[in-house]
């Protein structure tokens, strides 16, 4: 979306000199808005107008990348304020902060090893933030951290000399540099430019942030991440909202970059809830202090949920899945390949502790009842598939357990496959008692 005619008109000199070929600035503005003229046709246009017009064609929020190899974090390039309007594209990077006064090698190794698995997904921390206290210890800490992890590094020091030395150690890792402020920004920009690393611009408030961003952009650097300097939860939420909203709705260029937020809660659980606010509302990076398992597992799960694309059903690969140490005697369940349905059923089947096969039948990612209503989970499709499936070679019986909600398809499956159909529970939560009662689990 470009600028509107009125927005362009506001930027023009309003002299009606006619040198552009049309009699009035207003007519020129309208030609420009509809692509019938170019800005260079106006000999009197100001630099500010040029900048505003050029940026109007750029994406509202710049895509900024940190890290290298398999550990690249993409930030920004978002287009909406509500996920239901389209989708959120680049999941918030979760970083853990380590002080250079800590046992850096040990802590970074611990962070690097954190790994959570659920419903077929793996969650890991995206990066490590090293906080510097003195130039010497900062450089050593960054060296130690770099040796222990390939994750994205975030270097925290507002002392340019310390930053320069530390950044040189990881020059080829594209770390995030934190932070440029009013006093150090010339030097920080120089360091960032040298290694082409994203630079956090840290204001004292939104107003100050804008001035600083304009200064840094004036120095010729645009690989930026924004920090309004605010740390109170509700106020950070307000600032993150303003930054995202003005970038998207107003094309306000100084806010057209990804944003970073820092947690302040001392309690690891409250910290995770605080981080949740920033993951939900517009931060591209959140830096945390604790590595509590329950906190991170729930936070990652939430991030996964909110960054799910609302426009497409999420499906698992159709096929036969073994749950536990299956044998030819193991029972066989069938459900759809809608991932939510599949993983809910898989979780319950696993909880029976009776090794089983679970068929994720291809319904284009629809849930059981929807797929049944839509003719994608019926005897006519399941029967022939089952007859030829390799499940026939895996088990020595022909008994299939189907969801209770679609008991009506029993007859047709039996007729077309030669299998016996057992009607299972209506809800996945009933699988436990069903297995106990009917399968002797």
């Amino acid at each position, binding site marked *: 979306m470009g600028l509107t005619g009125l927005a362009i008109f506001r930027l023009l000199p309003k002299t009606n000199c006619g040198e552009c070929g049309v009699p009035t600035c207003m007519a020129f503005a309208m030609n420009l808005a509809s692509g019938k003229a170019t800005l260079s046709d106006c000999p009197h246009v100001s630099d500010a107008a040029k900048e505003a017009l050029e940026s109007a064609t750029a994406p509202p929020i710049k895509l900024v990348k940190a890290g290298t190899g398999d550990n690249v974090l993409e930030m920004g390039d978002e287009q909406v304020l509500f996920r239901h309007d389209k989708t959120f594209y680049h999941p918030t990077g979760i970083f853990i902060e380590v002080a250079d006064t800590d046992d850096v090698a040990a802590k970074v190794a611990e962070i690097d090893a954190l790994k959570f698995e659920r*419903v077929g997904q793996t969650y890991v921390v995206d990066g490590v933030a090293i906080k510097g206290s003195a130039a010497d210890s900062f450089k050593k800490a960054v060296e130690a951290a770099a040796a222990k992890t390939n994750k994205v590094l975030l270097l925290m020091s507002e002392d340019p000399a310390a930053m320069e030395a530390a950044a040189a150690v990881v020059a080829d890792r594209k770390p995030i540099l934190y932070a440029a402020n009013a006093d150090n920004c010339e030097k920080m920009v120089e360091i960032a430019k040298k290694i082409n690393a994203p630079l956090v611009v840290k204001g004292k408030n939104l107003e100050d942030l804008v001035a600083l961003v304009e200064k840094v952009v004036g120095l010729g650097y645009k690989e930026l991440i924004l920090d309004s300097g605010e740390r109170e939860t509700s106020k950070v939420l307000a600032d993150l909202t303003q930054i995202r909203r003005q970038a998207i709705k107003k094309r306000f260029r100084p806010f057209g970059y990804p944003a970073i937020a820092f947690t302040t809660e001392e309690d690891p659980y409250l910290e995770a809830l605080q981080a949740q606010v920033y993951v939900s509302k517009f931060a591209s990076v959140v830096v945390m202090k604790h590595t509590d398992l329950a906190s991170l597992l729930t936070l990652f*799960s939430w991030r996964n949920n909110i960054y799910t694309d609302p426009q497409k059903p999420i499906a698992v690969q159709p096929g036969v899945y073994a749950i536990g140490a299956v044998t030819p005697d193991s029972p066989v369940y069938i459900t759809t390949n809608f991932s939510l349905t599949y993983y809910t059923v898989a979780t319950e089947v696993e909880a029976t502790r009776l090794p089983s096969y679970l068929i994720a039948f291809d319904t284009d990612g629809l849930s059981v009842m929807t797929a049944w209503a839509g003719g994608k989970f019926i005897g006519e499709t399941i029967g022939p598939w089952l007859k030829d499936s390799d499940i026939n070679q895996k088990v020595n019986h022909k008994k299939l357990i189907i969801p209770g909600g679609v008991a009506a398809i029993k007859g047709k499956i039996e007729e077309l496959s030669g299998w016996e159909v057992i009607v299972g529970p209506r809800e996945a939560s009933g699988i436990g008692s069903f297995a106990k009662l009917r399968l002797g689990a």
Partner: protein
Amino acid sequence: MPVEILKEKYTGKVQEVVLGATKEEGGTRAYTVKLGGSSTLPFLQFEGEIPNRPVIAYEMWDIKPDWPDCFEEVYGDVWNDPVAWAKKIEELGADVIYLKLKGADPELENSKTPDECAKVVKAILENTGAPLMVEGPGNPDKDNDVLQAVGEAAAGENIALGVAEKDNYRSIAAACMMGKHCIVGRSPVDINILKQLNIMLTEMGVSPEKIINDPLTGGLGYGIEYSYSIMERARWGALIGDKMMAFPVVCLAGPEAWRAKEAYAPIEDAGPGWGEQKPRGIMWEAMTAAALLQAGGDLVLMRHPEAAKLVKKHLEGLMVSNAY
């Protein structure tokens, strides 16, 4: 370039609903709570009013619940005695007591009669001061009978009765109007049906300041994002003037969160990296509630007191004004 704070101009707001009645108002509650009333998106006080902090309700049943084992140490001493249980959650800090009359489920042996349910409710009201919400056993016919008896027994107390659904709302709505109670209207994660239900309730004569909505919540990790988006759309609708999308929203964070294996599985059954069950379960519930609050929840129903306390503390930070 100076920053102009960009504020949305809204024309509507969330309906405010009062729950409970004090002595002066014809009831016996020690205090009342207000749900809703916001004229802005969640926690954005810089562009509108948020007159009421989201409310924290604690869940209890009239019989021993089939909850995961970890609740034994929390409620094992009271869950055979509804009055003791209600008093305990009030002491633990519940703004509102949420009673599920599961004991009236006709599929249970010795299923409770409507009269017995009414007695339980009366006893709880006599021994506590918090406003009360009552949910039926979940069987449409039985719900109607039970809630009518409860509504009569609690006349004047301005409790909330639920849940009314598209195919079963008339008798519950009548009970609410008769006893001047609030009503909880529920739809199965479907914004269009929810709106239609609200229209049908208002057309029956239920006053807007008595309607509460339950959009039915998905738990963390299991479809919560659907609820999140529905709630965001509904709040936006309310703010741009859609009065039938403007009723305060309750979120069943506790019951939904504890359905997930991630919440209840002991460490022997846990997935890679999950850690101990207790903090994991508490956080699963707290994270569910906190996420739904960001989408516009006006009341969160909590099950574990530790999770409820975390959410309450979390809310303190969110309620600090962020006016520029």
